């Protein structure tokens, strides 16, 4: 022992010196190195991070992907913030015209926009983008891009004729990066073969350094047509877990969080932190119960679905799973929007009524085991509720829904799977992996694509239609809506469609979350909260407006 003590002491001392000297050295260096420039640090969790700059569906579906390309590229136009009433705002296109039949749109581009390499942005770049981007593999596929023809009038004017009458109040060709033709031309048949290391666009920020799984370092594009942005640098930092990310905000390592915000459970941790404000906005996502009408059981019976809707106490879900940060919802259309139908069928929480409906429809507990039986007596009403295991709030909501349905005699088995498996199951309702599911999507204010959820399978609607729902009435209304070219007519059909869904309940819409974003207000101003939080796929405004104090 005596002989070994010095060795132990030596090891301890060495470790001590190494750790603390590195701490002091590295920590000190950082401050002196980066002091002159203003830098906004944005904290993301690994699950939301974009780990490759190759253009693909991750730019559409990963939260960081959605945010990042909007900063590095310009779009023709973008959606306004909440204050503007989500009105279309000019970006590359200074203004636009539309023909009488609402099919031919002409965009007039600004002539002072240049790509990061100095090349001017022209109508040919726009044409190139819209010709090849939707064809990339897998496709950048949106209703917005269903055009019939494109004509470049001159360098700064482009005319696009759509397949269907479009718009009101929004023009088409929304939400796509305008790519530099001279860079992408060689890769036009396979965009994924280009590594796109520099994300060369005409956007407000340029990529300075990209490290997969670690950080993305953006610097201001000083030559931006709209003037240089209010901060010199933005760093997207990636943290291993939600807890770590939250600690980073509290420590001052980060100034705001990405996309989905923080868990409402942790909001108290930020309330007392000096210089941090918490912004709360309604979510862009809407949650619903997705009934699989392909299953040959009680779920197919409208009465059962009605009973389930009555048995679900939405207020309690909001209280428990969202700690109060949410509100009930009943339609695919947000209450804020003009074409929201106030006159739809609603199913307020009433357990007794749910039981009465089930009793009347013949779903009684015939074997006395506390669980109701199917109408034909073929067994218990025992249904699998599919939900993704990766999102804590959804797991909790599903757990509570199962409890509440248990109270009215419907046995619910939770089927919690990872997100990819979840979508794989959900989008193949005909394979019957689930009886009903807790689902969510964010239509956004310009949510025309959303109606595809209800387009009948027999009518070419397979794909988004995760309920295996089929209604000629709905399909007709949808076709009419697509074909009509006045806002009034469109809104009439939109309201009709909402009404049909609320009566048939293929989707039982239940709630909408609130997004909670802690932000550093001590050093920065200009955070813009819209529907869906301080930053998201329709809202790059915070990054565009941010300014150092």
């Amino acid at each position, binding site marked *: 022992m005596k002989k070994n003590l010095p060795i132990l002491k030596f090891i301890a001392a060495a470790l001590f010196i190494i750790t603390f000297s590195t701490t002091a050295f590295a920590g000190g260096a950082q401050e002196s190195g980066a002091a002159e420039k203003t830098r906004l640090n944005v904290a993301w969790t690994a699950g939301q991070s974009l780990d490759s700059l190759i253009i693909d569906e991750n730019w559409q579906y990963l939260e960081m992907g959605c945010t990042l390309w909007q900063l590095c590229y310009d779009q023709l136009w973008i959606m306004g913030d909440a204050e503007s009433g989500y009105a279309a705002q000019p970006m590359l296109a200074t203004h636009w015209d539309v023909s009488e039949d609402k099919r031919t749109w002409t965009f007039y581009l600004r002539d002072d926009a240049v790509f990061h390499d100095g090349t001017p942005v022209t109508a040919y770049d726009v044409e190139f983008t819209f010709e090849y981007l939707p064809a990339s593999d897998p496709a950048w596929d949106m209703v917005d891009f269903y055009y019939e023809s494109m004509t470049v009038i001159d360098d700064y004017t482009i005319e696009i004729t759509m397949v269907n009458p479009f718009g009101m109040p929004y023009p088409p060709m929304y939400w796509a990066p305008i790519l530099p033709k001279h860079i992408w031309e060689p890769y036009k048949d396979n965009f994924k073969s280009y590594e796109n290391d520099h994300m060369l666009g005409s956007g407000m920020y340029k990529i300075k350094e990209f490290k997969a799984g670690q950080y993305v370092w953006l610097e201001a594009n000083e030559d931006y047509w709209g003037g240089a942005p209010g901060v010199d640098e933005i760093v997207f930092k990636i943290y291993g877990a939600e807890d770590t990310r*939250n600690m980073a905000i509290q420590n001052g390592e980060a100034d705001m969080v990405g996309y989905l915000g923080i868990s409402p*459970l942790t909001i108290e941790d930020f309330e007392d932190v000096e210089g941090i404000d918490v912004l709360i906005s309604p979510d862009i996502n809407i949650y619903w119960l997705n009934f699989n009408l392909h299953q040959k059981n009680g779920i197919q019976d409208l009465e059962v679905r009605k009973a389930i809707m009555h048995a679900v106490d939405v207020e309690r879900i909001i*209280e*428990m799973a969202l700690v109060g940060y949410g509100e009930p919802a009943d339609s695919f259309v947000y209450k804020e929007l003009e074409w929201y139908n106030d006159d739809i069928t609603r199913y307020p929480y009433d357990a007794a009524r749910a039981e009465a409906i089930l009793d009347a429809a013949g779903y009684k507990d015939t074997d006395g085991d506390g669980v109701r039986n199917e109408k034909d007596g073929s067994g218990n009403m025992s249904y699998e509720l599919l939900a993704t295991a*990766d999102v804590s709030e959804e*797991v909790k909501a599903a757990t509570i829904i199962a409890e509440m349905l248990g109270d009215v005699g419907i046995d619910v088995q939770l089927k919690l*799977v*990872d997100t990819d*498996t979840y979508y794989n199951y959900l989008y193949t309702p005909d394979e019957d992996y689930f009886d009903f599911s807790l689902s969510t999507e964010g239509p956004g204010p310009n949510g025309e694509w959303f109606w595809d959820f209800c387009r009948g399978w027999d009518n070419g609607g397979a794909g988004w239609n995760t309920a295996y729902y089929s209604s000629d009435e709905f399909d007709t209304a949808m076709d009419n809506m697509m074909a009509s070219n006045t806002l009034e007519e469109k809104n009439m059909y939109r309201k009709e469609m909402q009404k049909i869904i609320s009566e048939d309940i293929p989707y039982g819409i239940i709630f909408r979350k609130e997004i909670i974003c802690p932000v550093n207000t001590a050093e920065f101003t200009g955070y813009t909260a819209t529907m869906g939080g301080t930053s998201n796929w329709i809202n790059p405004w915070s990054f565009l407006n941010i300014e150092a104090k």
Partner: protein
Amino acid sequence: MRVNSYKLQKAGDFWAMFFSHRMGRTGFLIFCFFIFLALFAPILRTVPPEISGSADRILTGPDGISWLGTDDLARDVWSQVIFGSRVSLIIGFVTAIITVFTGTLVGLVAGFKGGIVDEILMRIVDFFMMLPHLPLMIVLAAVMGASIWNIVIVISIVSWPSTARLVRSQVLSLKERPFVEAIRCLGANDITMMMSEILPNVFPVMFAQGVLMVTETIYAESVLSFLGLGDPTTISWGTMLHFCFESGAMARSPWWVFPPIVCIVSLIISFSFLGTAVTDILTPGYKEKMGY
């Protein structure tokens, strides 16, 4: 591990030595404590662990109503811990039984039959031992889906070979013992020899391995759950941790994150102690040294 079965003729001796072994005693006490929790879980707490509480009791710290506080659905942490002990112990034992059974069978046949059978079985065992365990478990769990029984299967697939190898080496030495030859000479067939002469003498190894497997299972379940591959619909210590990590509120609710960790660690320690005690006792010379 060397095991001398000569020293094990009398169960009484064994237990006497066991209880005078400090680690054995401590381990046994901790183990009994958890068995007690598991057996009397419904009496120790009347709140069912899976039922959510009222909204004003979400994530409250320990108090008179919830002795260890509540989780993010206002469920009682204490009752989750005690009901979780059932799941953890059950999957631990089930896995131990499966792995020890499989491993013993393979080891017994390989060691006894020898020759080409031995060669083939041992190559398979070597192969499995060569595979990186946790990655294999993770991959299997990811591929098979999250369910508590899948976890049992996954851990069993990975863990049986070490038992097989130990049992085989025991069998090889036992096979050379005169009493095995004697019973063969007396007319016993292979099955009788394996089952009645060799197997009983392998029991100590099987026991030690079983103990090890219980700890490894509890450990592995917690790791898999931590990585989000556990079964979120069954309450075990691992899934408690999983929900805690997922909630994002781990840092502010120590009463939620520590109990399952403490339980996992102390149960593993208790089994390590038991294992050490048994190994010590079965080591040749221990009995003499301790003066029995």
